[in-house]
């Protein structure tokens, strides 16, 4: 850990504990610190904690981040109020989750960054909600069937008809579990905090399996635990069902070490593992993008899901790479001729092999041989996921 990383962790701890940071190291590099804060989408919080130690010039990047956080949060709030009123008038039940809910637990909700506002709707309301959003002047796109994204001015909404739609590295059906959200919505249209907490744990696990995660979700957990009286017995039981209890324990152990927040239960992790996970989280930043270590994340997830011996799982995945399914190929613009004509799939495969052989032969070979060439990387990642309790 660099001195800037250590100092930022101390600053975050002070923010959570409502304490004043008493010093920063000599030769503190403000530019490095700003980059770390930006990498974790925590510029506003870091600025408020460190501003006493420097002049505006050294702080200008962090200050810009702080102003940006204030700008987006104010616009978000104003836009969301307008949208809520429109939904109420239309008689549609829409419940916020993730950042919009968690931000309310922060001492300054403006400083809890988020890329968009996540809203959950009942699947049967999808088209009514869509028509309303279009009427209100939003532009939209659909990347994933369960999540439609709407954009207006500087604000984006992700409207989900399933809270959870991805598979993780085990066989638990998280989508079905979180589809029960409507049984956990109170009369004020708020998801019960316990159920929402389960979702946050599952969501964090998903990011860690897919790529990685920065410090922000751990701050969320710490603030939730500090501010809300939760039924921990029920949460523990449900996490057990979801096969996420060991993971939650590891997260809580990290929260205690980093943020000195008393958590309800925690794993007993070794100093070596603590250092390893801290390095990984710091390096990953907000969603682990850009960290080379995560390059085999998707492959590792599939190997883990298959529950087959490595060689057999790798062979199966290579076959899938050579013969992708209709569902995987049809959305690619180059293979749009497949739409409604699945019987053309073999032709698409032949075209794909020919194109790769002619234009990117080396890449094609590397792609197919990846499971063999990167076996050590995959095994290391599998071990890391195991250490996370996943």
């Amino acid at each position, binding site marked *: 850990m660099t001195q800037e990383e250590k100092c930022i962790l101390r600053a975050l701890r002070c923010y959570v504990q409502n304490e004043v940071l008493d010093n920063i190291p000599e030769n503190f590099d403000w530019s490095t610190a700003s980059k770390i804060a930006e990498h974790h989408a925590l510029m506003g919080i870091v600025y408020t904690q460190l501003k006493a130690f420097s002049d505006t010039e050294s702080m200008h990047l962090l200050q810009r981040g702080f102003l940006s956080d204030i700008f987006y949060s104010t616009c978000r709030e*104003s836009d969301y109020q307008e949208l809520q009123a429109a939904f109420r008038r239309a008689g549609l039940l829409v419940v916020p989750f993730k950042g919009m809910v968690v931000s309310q637990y922060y001492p*300054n909700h403006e*400083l809890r960054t988020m890329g968009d506002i996540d809203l959950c709707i009942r699947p049967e309301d999808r088209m009514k909600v869509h028509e309303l959003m279009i009427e209100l002047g939003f532009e939209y796109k659909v990347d994933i069937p369960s999540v439609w994204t709407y954009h207006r001015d500087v604000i984006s909404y992700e409207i989900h008809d399933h809270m959870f739609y991805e598979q993780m590295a085990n066989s638990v059906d998280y989508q079905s579990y979180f589809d029960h959200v409507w049984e956990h919505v109170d009369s004020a249209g708020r998801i019960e905090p316990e159920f929402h907490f389960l979702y946050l744990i599952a969501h964090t696990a998903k990011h860690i399996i897919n790529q990685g995660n920065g410090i922000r979700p751990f701050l969320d957990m710490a603030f939730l635990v500090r501010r809300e009286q939760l039924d921990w017995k029920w949460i523990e039981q449900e996490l057990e069902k979801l096969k996420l209890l060991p993971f939650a324990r590891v997260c809580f152990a990290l929260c205690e070490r980093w943020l000195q927040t008393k958590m309800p239960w925690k794993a007993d992790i070794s100093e070596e593992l603590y250092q390893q996970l801290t390095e990984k989280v710091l390096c990953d930043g907000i969603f682990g993008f850009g960290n080379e270590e995560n390059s085999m994340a998707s492959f590792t997830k599939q190997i883990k899901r298959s529950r087959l011996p490595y060689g057999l799982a790798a062979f199966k995945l290579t076959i899938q790479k050579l013969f992708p399914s209709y569902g995987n190929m049809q959305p690619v613009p180059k293979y749009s001729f497949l739409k409604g004509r699945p019987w053309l799939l073999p032709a698409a495969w032949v075209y794909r092999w020919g194109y790769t052989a002619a234009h990117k032969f080396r890449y094609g070979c590397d792609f197919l041989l990846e499971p063999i060439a990167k076996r050590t990387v995959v095994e290391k990642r599998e071990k890391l996921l195991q250490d996370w309790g996943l």
Partner: protein
Amino acid sequence: MKEDISFKITKGVCLVEVCGEAVLVSTREARGKCPSVQLVNSAAAYYWSLIEQGFTYGQIIQHAAGEFTLEEMQVAAAFDQFVEALTQNGYLIAERHTV
């Protein structure tokens, strides 16, 4: 008959105070009319709050002079600068009228 000035805040602009910092933010309704975000000092935040309450120029000078035991002339000089900067940026609209 006496002349006074009243102020109108551009629709969609609001003052946000976080951790001792005051920031003017233009939301969607104010987009294109003024800068998106501007850090202001505590004096400006104080004047802004009086404008939000509907105080006129004369009332603000009187109020601030009383609160900080300053000469009205001194307050007027500082307040004029504030008004000039914020009207130029489009955050405020000043309207002269007789009372």
